[in-house]
């Protein structure tokens, strides 16, 4: 069963140096508060996994938490580049960043394979393109029934999966509404998992019988963190702070401005 704890304790207990860590959220429900706590606790040499490493991973990479990134789209959505990510890849600042690069279809399938307990994912993809020549984790298999050549990538099985969600109930079950992304898969694929939530309620009350709920016994720790997805958004609670995404472009462009921002806003 999930334990209720605070953010500092959840990160200290579950995230160690060198771990494979995924903080997911497909634009929606990005666990910023948890990522910021990882920066505060000065975790190092993490392998960060995420389909869309946007501002949160830009901050974690710039703060020196990561030595490797597994991803499929690394930009500031609708704005432009991730400057800290680019600085790490192009110039090795603040430390070199190894990258394992995929397409969305590959990562989405790899998450589903991880949640399914399979060693790899198979799908129709990566045909005629260059990524397989720079990523040895992209391979091809022949369908045993039709002979069709299909793409294969390893399942994603992080040490720790971290998500943000709308609500937990007193038993520690976690409810997700809106764009669900890969939230469910991340928790089910990870050895340990943390869910930060907007609120903790007595019980979920009336809901669709098909509501997306992760049972308490699939989650290691539940943490109350209102606003924990800002500047991304939590459907039904607050909207995306698009202006911060635009502002980040300026803050992150310059190493000094970035360093000052981290010191003043995260610690």
């Amino acid at each position, binding site marked *: 069963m999930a334990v209720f704890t605070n953010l500092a304790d959840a990160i200290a207990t579950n995230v160690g140096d060198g771990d494979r860590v995924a903080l997911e959220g*497909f*634009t*929606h429900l990005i666990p910023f508060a948890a990522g910021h706590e990882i920066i505060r606790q000065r975790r190092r040499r993490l392998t960060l996994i995420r*389909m*869309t490493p946007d501002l949160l991973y830009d901050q974690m990479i710039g703060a020196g938490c990561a030595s490797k990134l597994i*991803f*499929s*789209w*690394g*930009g500031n*959505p*609708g*704005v432009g*580049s*991730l400057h800290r*990510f*680019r600085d790490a*890849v*192009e110039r090795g600042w603040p430390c070199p960043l190894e990258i394992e*690069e*995929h*397409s*969305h*279809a590959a990562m*989405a*399938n790899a*998450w*589903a394979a991880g949640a399914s307990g399979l060693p790899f994912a198979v*799908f*129709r*993809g*990566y*045909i*005629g*393109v*260059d*990524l397989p020549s*720079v990523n040895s984790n992209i391979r091809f298999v022949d369908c045993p029934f039709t002979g*069709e*050549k299909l793409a294969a990538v390893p399942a994603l099985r992080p040490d720790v999966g971290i998500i943000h969600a709308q609500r937990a109930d007193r038993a520690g079950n976690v409810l997700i509404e*809106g*764009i*669900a*992304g*890969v939230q*469910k*898969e991340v928790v089910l694929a990870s050895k340990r998992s943390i869910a930060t939530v907007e609120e903790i309620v007595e019980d979920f009350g009336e809901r669709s019988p098909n509501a997306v709920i992760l049972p308490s016994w699939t989650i290691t720790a539940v943490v109350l963190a209102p606003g924990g997805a800002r500047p991304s*958004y939590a*459907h039904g609670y607050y*909207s*995306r*702070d*698009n*202006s911060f*995404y635009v502002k980040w472009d300026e803050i992150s462009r310059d190493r000094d401005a970035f360093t000052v921002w981290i010191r003043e806003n995260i610690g």
Partner: protein
Amino acid sequence: MSQPYTAAEMMTVAAARALSNRDICFVGIGLPSAACNLARMTHAPGLTLIYESGTIETKPRVLPLSIGDGELCETALTTVSVPEMFRYWLQGGRITVGFLGGAQVDRFGNLNSTVIGKYGSPKIRLPGAGGATEIATSCGRVFIVMRQSPRTFVNRLDFMTTLGHGPTGRERRELGIMTEGPALLVTDLCIMKPGEVTKDMSVVSLHPGVTMEAVRAATGWDVRAADTLAETMPPAATELEALRELNRRTAEAHGRQVAE
């Protein structure tokens, strides 16, 4: 009736016109999203828009800044998980048109959105593939919309992120891909289509006031005009009004959040 309009507006309008009520369209963010929603708000109200964040039959009132804005989910018929979107809906062959952009395009409609320079030591690290790689092979057809310049319309891609018609125009069939690939390339100067056999992108329509010389100057390969070269119809008043109204609502919606 001549109404002043910008080259960017001409591009978005020309791209929007390519979509019909029958299309089920996988929408990329940015220029593709603007064109798709303009089509839905003008001549193709029945156009089905699908975003990779999982939203199906999406009807945003303003353009999203990101692929997963709340606006998309709130206005969709239903929202599925991202693995389901890529497996059942895209790979399952449910999408008729994929609408893409990129940093570089070549004469066969192949796209680069990964790096400028060498992969291991890039001059510019771009965002990467996202959904594009499999959108381009799984959707019935692909439409591309990009601003045209010699830096973006190149003779040789630095990296093949997304397969168009392949390095020589013949590779799709050789690789066993059954979908059509790039069928249309809309720019701020012209409209290009692939040759039936060669798959070489040639100019089928020049936007008003644009010459072939201007197109050649903005293209890194030896671009030719098709046998019949048309002039693109300028944006109609209704198209222009709908686009400007969409952009105004979008700016206001995103601007309001600045004030929050």
